[in-house]
């Protein structure tokens, strides 16, 4: 039979995916690290890593699972940080409401920028997102409420739900960890959902998805808004952790940084952006105290990584483990 001979010619397929033991083990280890980290490492540093990890994971939802390279995600990150910081300082919003406000703002901004960018492909998509986020940067630079070059400083952390004092660094840490976990699990759920299946189909072959009757623009916009919202969540929380919202968070360098983290860690893997964020934040922290010029070192590492490990750290590890099986 033709079918049978050909069947043996193709390598045996991996078994139906699902939660493998590898995934479960990884999840347990990750959770333990998350719980124990503030007792081993300086909490503010871990919180910074977690904020950027969520940022990168949200960015990767778009790049890794829909195939859209946004060069404007700083607008969502920094925009949400401004809204969160301002609403606390000016209106005495409690932290949870301020974070919600920042997130919703990022989602709305994502809807506008996404709507304008989604019709374009590839590099044009990236350029439109960059242009629009730069426009937003100049708004932030000029608008009086952002505090211009100084940013919004000394944002009080406040009391979560009215009774958990976020001034306490452990309380603050576990709150950030919970937000990160929420965002990460949300992305995991979306990626492995019926909707996520369609996103992958669009990434794999957009023309075919259209010919099957999918209004791909709607799916892309949906993913863009979700990605922007989760990016905003990360930015808003970061504003509370550092009690600061500034132009650094909305600049194009920030958009570049998140691309770097995602590429280093591994596009289209769930853990990759987290690893990439941890690596980049650690390097920056380490280099900040040395005399090396930070951008040069990071740029060099980036180029080396792109040349040697195209799939990123986690992508290469996954590929290695798959080969061994």
């Amino acid at each position, binding site marked *: 039979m033709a079918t049978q001979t050909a*069947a043996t010619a193709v390598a045996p*397929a991996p078994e139906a995916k699902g939660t493998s033991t590898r995934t479960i083990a990884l999840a347990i280890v990750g959770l333990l690290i998350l719980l124990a980290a503030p007792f081993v490492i300086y909490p503010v540093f871990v919180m910074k890593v977690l904020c950027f990890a969520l940022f990168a994971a949200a960015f990767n939802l778009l790049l890794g699972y829909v195939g859209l390279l946004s060069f404007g995600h700083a607008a969502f990150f920094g925009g949400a940080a401004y809204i969160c910081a301002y609403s606390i300082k000016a209106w005495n919003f409690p932290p949870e409401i301020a974070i919600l406000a920042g997130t919703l703002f990022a989602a709305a901004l994502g809807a506008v920028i996404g709507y304008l960018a989604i019709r374009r492909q590839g590099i044009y998509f990236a350029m439109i997102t960059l242009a629009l986020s730069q426009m937003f940067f100049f708004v932030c630079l000029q608008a009086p409420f952002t505090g211009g070059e100084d940013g919004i400083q000394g944002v009080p952390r406040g009391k979560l739900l009215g009774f958990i004092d976020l001034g306490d660094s452990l309380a603050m840490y576990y709150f950030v960890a919970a937000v990160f976990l929420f965002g990460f699990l949300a992305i995991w759920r979306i990626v492995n*959902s*019926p909707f996520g299946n*369609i996103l992958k189909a669009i990434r794999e072959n957009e*023309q075919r*998805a259209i*010919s099957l*009757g999918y*209004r791909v623009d709607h799916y892309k916009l949906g993913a863009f808004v979700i990605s922007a919202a989760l990016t905003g969540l990360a930015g808003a929380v970061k504003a509370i952790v550092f009690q600061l919202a500034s132009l650094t968070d909305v600049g194009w360098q920030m958009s570049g940084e998140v691309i770097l983290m995602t590429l280093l860690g591994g596009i289209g893997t769930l853990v990759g952006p987290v690893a990439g964020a941890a690596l980049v934040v650690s390097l920056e922290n380490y280099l900040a105290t040395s005399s090396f010029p930070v951008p040069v070192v990071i740029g060099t590492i980036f180029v080396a990584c792109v040349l040697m490990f195209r799939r990123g750290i986690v992508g290469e590890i996954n590929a290695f483990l798959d080969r061994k099986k």
Partner: protein
Amino acid sequence: MTQTAPAAAAPAAAATNIVLSATELTKEFKGFLAVNNVHLSIREGSIHALIGPNGAGKTTCFNLLTKFLQPTRGRIVFRGEDITRLKPAEIARRGIVRSFQISAVFPNLSVLDNVRIALQRPGRLATQFWRPDTALNVLNARAEELVEQVGLQAFIRHQAGELPYGRKRALELATTLALEPDVMLLDEPMAGMAHEDIGQIAALIRRAAVGRTVVMVEHNLHVVEDLCDQVTVLQRGEILAEGNYDSVSRDPRVREAYMGQEDD
């Protein structure tokens, strides 16, 4: 009723008979006429072949009919509705589903998932982002049936990208059939298939064509003769001949156009 009666002369008869039609269909690429003033009338329930030498404009016709390209001129009507201005996804949603000449699968998804992507579309399962993907298992029985129809059951868990070319085509056919389209436009569905599989796929198309309309581009004239009720021959973007296989194959202009082209 005569077959040659122009639509204008017998509008009532045409309306009941013709499912998809194109008038004065024209596509210009920077001054080059890839499709020039083509009239097509696809009869309900027929298998209609679109043949012609390489570069004749067959794929361009498909792209126009499914709106992947916007025609420079002309009008496309589906079941009495002017669909000339619709977007391609809307065409598919009305039941006109195409396949691609360069096999179009989702390479990093399994064979099963490829078919499930199509099955997901009509219901609510396409937009549910809060449910686990195990929710899609309700589609498995139907998906497996379709995969079996095209003889790919042994490959169901394989990544589509790993399949040899001919089997990708079979998978694409299964995915197209999953939507239960009213009109199927198949662009060289047999290309790259092993000789022994061609008969199987031809039989499948014949079975699938019951209750629907098929338009297919096909280079293999034996398949065309065997399968198709109506043949339109294109050459340099224009219709050269039209009719059933026998009349078309006897046409001297067609024979000339196919000189040296007719393979096996």
